[in-house]
């Protein structure tokens, strides 16, 4: 009985507790903890392969945070481009250079301590500034955001369809789409990819051998004379 009661009460309490939990906040805390922990892990580990792994986890967790903030399209892009593209690129880099001596290069302890102190200072500054504005600390109103993919897509085409009642009229009048930046970024991306391919192409090693041959010839002639 007692156990039942206790079990019941526990269950009841659990029910109550469960009903009181803000699931949105809970999920945020989970993802945030994962992202921060993995980021710190990236810093702490020396092995570059592990760093890459932790980074993937951190970025993925961040994508979750984006979803929670209502930025579903950005979150999706985060997963696709960052986790799916950039990280693959990094992993290629790791694989291309991951010879035994370079997998883990140790940093002097003094640098680590120094970096830690400096990082702590920066963190302190950033956190202080995060808490410095009162309106930022105000809890969210809990509005359920509409999916942002459509307005965002339209904005990239030059048309603003989102409605921001809080925006000042004067700001409203100059708000426009992102067609031009979008184009610039597109071309930029193309150029960068071409450039990257050019920079990273395999080079033939001609000169050293040529020099060697010339030196050998000179030595040969010198010896003969």
């Amino acid at each position, binding site marked *: 009985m007692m156990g039942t009661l206790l079990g019941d009460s526990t269950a009841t309490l659990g029910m109550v507790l469960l009903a009181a939990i803000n699931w949105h906040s809970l999920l945020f805390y989970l993802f945030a903890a994962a992202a921060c922990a993995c980021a710190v892990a990236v810093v702490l580990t020396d092995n570059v392969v592990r760093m890459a792994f932790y980074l993937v986890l951190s970025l993925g967790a961040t994508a979750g945070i984006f979803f929670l903030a209502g930025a579903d399209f950005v979150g999706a892009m985060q997963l696709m481009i960052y986790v799916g593209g950039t990280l693959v690129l990094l992993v290629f880099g790791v694989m291309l250079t991951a010879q035994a001596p370079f997998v883990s290069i140790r940093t002097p302890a003094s*640098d680590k301590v*120094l*970096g830690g102190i*400096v*990082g702590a*200072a*920066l963190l302190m*500054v950033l956190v202080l*500034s995060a808490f410095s504005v009162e309106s930022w600390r105000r809890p969210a109103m809990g509005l359920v955001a509409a999916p942002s993919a459509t307005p965002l897509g339209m904005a990239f085409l030059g048309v603003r369809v989102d409605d921001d009642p809080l925006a000042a009229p004067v700001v409203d009048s100059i708000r426009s789409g992102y067609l031009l930046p979008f184009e610039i970024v597109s071309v930029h991306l193309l150029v960068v990819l071409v450039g990257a391919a050019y920079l990273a192409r395999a080079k033939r090693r001609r000169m050293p051998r040529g020099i060697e041959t010339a030196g050998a010839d000179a030595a040969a002639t010198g010896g003969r004379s």
Partner: protein
Amino acid sequence: MDPASTLPLLLGLAWLTPLVSFVAILFFGPRMGPHGKSSAAVATAAIVVSLALSLAALGTWLSVHPVQAVSHDSHAAADSHADSHADSHADSHADSHADSHADSHADSHDQALPPAYSGDWYTLYEGGALKLSIGWYIDALTVLMFVVVTFIASCIHIYAAGYMHDELHDFTDHTVHLSDGSHFHRPGRFSRFFQSLSLFCFSMLGIVIAGNLAMIFIFWELVGICSWFLIGFYYERQSASNAANKAFIVNRVGDFGMIIGMMALWGALGTLHFADSSGQNSAGIETIRPGLLSLVRPEATHHALHVPDGMVKFAAADRVAEITLDHATRTEDGASEIASRVDDWRAMGYGRWLLFVAGIGIFCGCVGKSAQFPLFVWLPDAMEGPTPVSALVHSATMVAAGVFLMGRFYPVLTPDVLLVIAYTGAITLFLAATIALVATDIKQVLAYSTISQLGYMMLALGVGGWVAGLFHLFTHAFFKSLLFLCSGSVIHACHTNDMRKMGGLAKVMPWTAGTMLVGCLAIIGAGVPFVIGLSGYYSKDSILAQALSFSQANPSHSILFVAATGGAFLTAFYMFRLWFMTFAGQPRDAHISEHAHESPRVMVAPLVALAILAIVAGWSLPGGFGIAAMLEQARPAGTAATVTSGYLFGSLTIPAEHESHVGAIHETATLAAFATAAAGVLLAAMMYVWRILSPLAVAWVFRPIYTFLKQRWYFDELYGAIFVQPVLGIASLASSIDLGVIDKIIDGVAWTARQLAGIDAWIDRTLVDGLVNATASATWSAGIELKKLQTGHLRQYVMFIVIGTVAMFVLASLLLRSSLAA
């Protein structure tokens, strides 16, 4: 052939030809042949062309105005004036030229205007009453003067071509010692000599042809500068350059008076032209502008001298102003009243002083140029120039200019001025003759004889002998140039000027001795009385006669005749002393007589030509033509008759000149001249040929007088003490003020500026440069230090960025917070 246009053309060309030669030699002289030898040919050709043109002009003149014999024995013909006047007006309007007074008068005793042509070639400036122009005034005097000047200048040019041959190569001047003891050595100056000669002739002819006083003054000064060039030809010699300066400066003293005279004339009369000139007034109407001659001797007074209206008004300026004030409202009334009262004022003597000042002023210029007392001191020193120059200066050009101007200006001179002129001439002739007695330098003797003869000319003009004075000017020009050229020939042969070293040269140099004898005879006026004589006989006799006539008319001034007669005696003595010492007797210096030789033909030929003219210049041709007759033709109107007038120095009678040509006066004068001249020659012969009287003994007996004369009456010392020393004293005072005060002040200013600049430089180097250098070195060392931050470690850079960011944040928040708190 219109003489009014032909004569100015011929004489103008004759005048300008030497200028062409001058310009040509000036620019191309050294390139004319070897050492500029051809420049002599150019200059000579120019002056000969000039002579030919002058002769052509003379021919033209004589064809229009034939000369008639001067009737010495004729009566004064004063009573026939009216008839001949009317006749000549009726028949002799040969010339319709507006400017000319072409009344040709057979009888020159007439009180009509002499024939003359005048006009302007070129007007330099015309404004108000002043008109400066280059013009001509041509009468018989001008034409004659042209012929004589160009003839003598031609002879001298030819002679100089031989005389100056030393200048054809590099010349060593043995009288100039350089600091190292050697003689001065320089290139020859042959072409420069002829260049100056040409300019000299041009200037002299300019004076002769000039139509107004201003133009005369221009060429007057040009003659002065030419004499400066030529006297100072050997300017390396201290004595030559001093003599040149002296001649120029002494002349300037006279010219100062001349400027005053010109101011008086122009200020009162508003014109400097001799003759009337036509011109357009401001309204464009043809008007006659009266000249000086017609203003002073207007036709209205029958050419008698009277003070011109302008001078009267000028002198009576107070009264004119009074009347003008009274009629301030109606100027016409005032003008008419002034005009009506001019005659009264003239009678009261207004303006006489002004006319006197004008005459004396112009005479001052002539005193300087013609070497009269007291400005004669430059002429003996002018012997420093080459001998041809002396000949030219002493005969036809420079000293003649003064007498010529007096002759030209004669009608304007009042009796008072004439008296001053007469006394000046008398003093000069006596003074110079006494000095010449004891001079031993052959050219000095001639120089003083020139001064003496110029004194004669002035005396003649002063006592009313217009023709006599100018006649003597012409005859003197011939025989004096002859004498100088002869002396040049002697000097050329002996290389010395000292007569005491000469003697017996007649055997070696017969031509020179002969021609010089002619010259000496001419200058003493030798001749058979009342029959015939050398040129000097006629001219000197007429001077003495006029002086005697004047003395008789004015007994209180009879000293003038005594001086003239005594001068004739002295002249005879010193001229023959010169000739005897040089040519007669035994050689005194063997060395010199051995080397003496007759001069080259180019030098002898002019001597002969001049000797002939020295003989015949005074003669009258059968047709009556002679220099005196031609001069008579140019006699200024109103000067022919005897005039008695009371002026500033009391009553004075200027006797008519023709009165001295007749009867007792003429005979007395001729005999006196002959007797004195003969006495002088005899005395000279006694002392220097026959040795009856020892010159040394005479000099010993009259020791004080001899020394006094030898020292030239101490005139140079006197002027030195009175004028030169004070001026030098003032100059040295000014110089010491300049050096001691002004220079010191300037030096002090400069020194101060230098010190200030030194301080400034120190500030610049130390402070400014130091600041700039310090900035630069600070930047440099900062760069060196900062370079160490550039470590190349990427991780460190990241660290820096983060630290920087944090620091900025902290700083910004602190500042923001404090500002918010505030």
